[in-house]
């Protein structure tokens, strides 16, 4: 049933792992289609992570207005998601999606 799910790797860095019970790496079989039958994209993944994997209840620390909050870089296979179509990017099997919170300390 490989068509039903997309195996992807999600990585969390820059402190975002704290929202996910300190998990830095999640291997996920993401449903290939959203509830409305659209192909799973990054925005869908963000919602999926909030519902199924995030342990912290402060959803707004990760997601705002249907996508990641400001101050989080999204890397699709090590490239800025803006090079790939941002939230609309449709996930492919074996993609690695890295969410990194911007740091400001020094």
């Amino acid at each position, binding site marked *: 049933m490989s068509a039903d799910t997309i195996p992807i790797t999600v990585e969390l860095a820059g402190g975002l792992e704290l929202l996910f019970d300190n998990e*830095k790496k999640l291997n996920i079989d993401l449903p290939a289609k959203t509830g409305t039958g659209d192909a799973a994209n990054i925005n869908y993944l963000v919602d999926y992570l909030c519902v199924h994997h995030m342990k912290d*209840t402060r959803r707004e620390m990760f997601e705002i207005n249907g996508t990641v*909050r400001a101050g989080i870089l999204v890397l699709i296979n*090590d490239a800025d998601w803006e090079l790939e179509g941002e939230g609309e990017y449709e996930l492919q099997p074996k993609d690695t999606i890295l969410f990194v919170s911007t740091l400001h300390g*020094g």
Partner: protein
Amino acid sequence: MEKFSLGSENLDLRIRIAELEKELADYRSGAAKNSNANGHATHVLDGEDDDDDDDEQNGLNPQDQDDKAVKLDLDEFRRYGRQMIMTEVGLDGQLQLKRSKVLLIGAGGLGCPAAAYLAGAGIGTIGIVDHDLVEPSNLHRQIMHTVEKVGQPKVKSIISSLKRINPNPKYIAHNYALTPENSIETLEKYDLVLDCTDSPQTRYMISDACVLLGKPLVSASALRSDGQLVVLNNPPGEGPCYRCVFPKPPPPESVLSCGEGGVLGPVVGAMGVLMSTEALKVLLSRADKKKRRKPAHLSPDIRPADAKDTPKREESPEQKKFYMTIYSAFSDTPFRTIRMFGKRKTCQACSPVATITKESMKNGSLDYVAFCGGKGSGKYPPLTKDEVINVEEYNKLRENKEGGLLVDVRDDVQFGMCALENSINVPITTILTLPIAPDKDGIDGGERTPVPIPSWLPRDTSTPIYFICRLGNDSRIAVQRLKKSGLVKGNVIKDIKGGLWEWSRKVDKTFPLY
């Protein structure tokens, strides 16, 4: 006779002296010949300074002209020899470093190591901006500050340490906080800026000033075991700026300082060291290596390494890609380089439609604090008077055995470091997973599976519940959150104001401050 023999002996000695003097003169002229290579090279570079158009294109200030007849003395050859013999440096590179003026903003965890290596490398002028004083909590990572400097201005402390590494550079202390009003004036004298600060608002401000002044910016940050490094506005006008990378500031509640989130010394140190490397790369790229082909005793074709240099300089800017380095010390793959989007067409600072100007910075009409949502404003909920108790009052209650249930909401690591007797540990992250009571319309505020009443909550309504944390912020959230959960009815729920920090200062001085 005696007199005569003394006379002839005297003559022999005079002849011998003359011979030795000749030998010495020959030896000296030979030595001069050997050192001619150095003299020659310096001379070539003096000549080279006549056509420095390239430097100006790369953002050097035209007023730097007077500094350009730079030479190295023999001690400097000794001091910098180990890096000068590298093909990436060379004499031209070293002279370029000596001509350069670098500004470090922040003399903390990033600024200390970055400044140490830049001073060591022989940068001509090093300016440092910081308005803080050295504190004991700085010493685990801010390696230019030492025990005897605690209480001193950081700029004074760092410069005295840097002088002990290398007395040659000119050090300029800017013992004030950088503001939008003074940033243009402060930065314009320099060729390159290093952002070693610790807040989003300063990062946007420094980036904007660098864009307006055409200065490349090396920017890094660190928190806990993570670090990030990026070179911005490089080359000026071509590379993305901080606003291109982060057009919207993060919500203030997501911003953590090293004081709040913690930081491992070598992690921030590594980022500072990497900053100095990137700074040297930017500066060395301005040295004109083409001139290296000229030394008379070397033919260009026996130096193939140099042949590569020329085409590199011609590389078209369209093909340039921009990267960020991220470091996660405890990850299996600690260093990663990620490709960034690049310049943003709608950037407020560096695009053709930019709205930020030198004037708007100088006259203070740009409010970076407000842009970033105000430091901590709205971060913690306001509580009413009867939801708060101060440490002295709480101590009295404890002495009368009326301390109720004392809940320490710090994380388990901090609770393990030190905690008040009879307190229990329920981290704020756990408190935040409490269900939210349904409101009047019966709509469940939280969508998660309902949590049964946690075992740590009192089952009676008479036990008061007091929340405490390190500084009295998370404990406020805990009070509000527990009330919202509707899990306890009738119990007194209070925040201990100022947290363990106040406790240590006002009640028990033996309780560790950290």
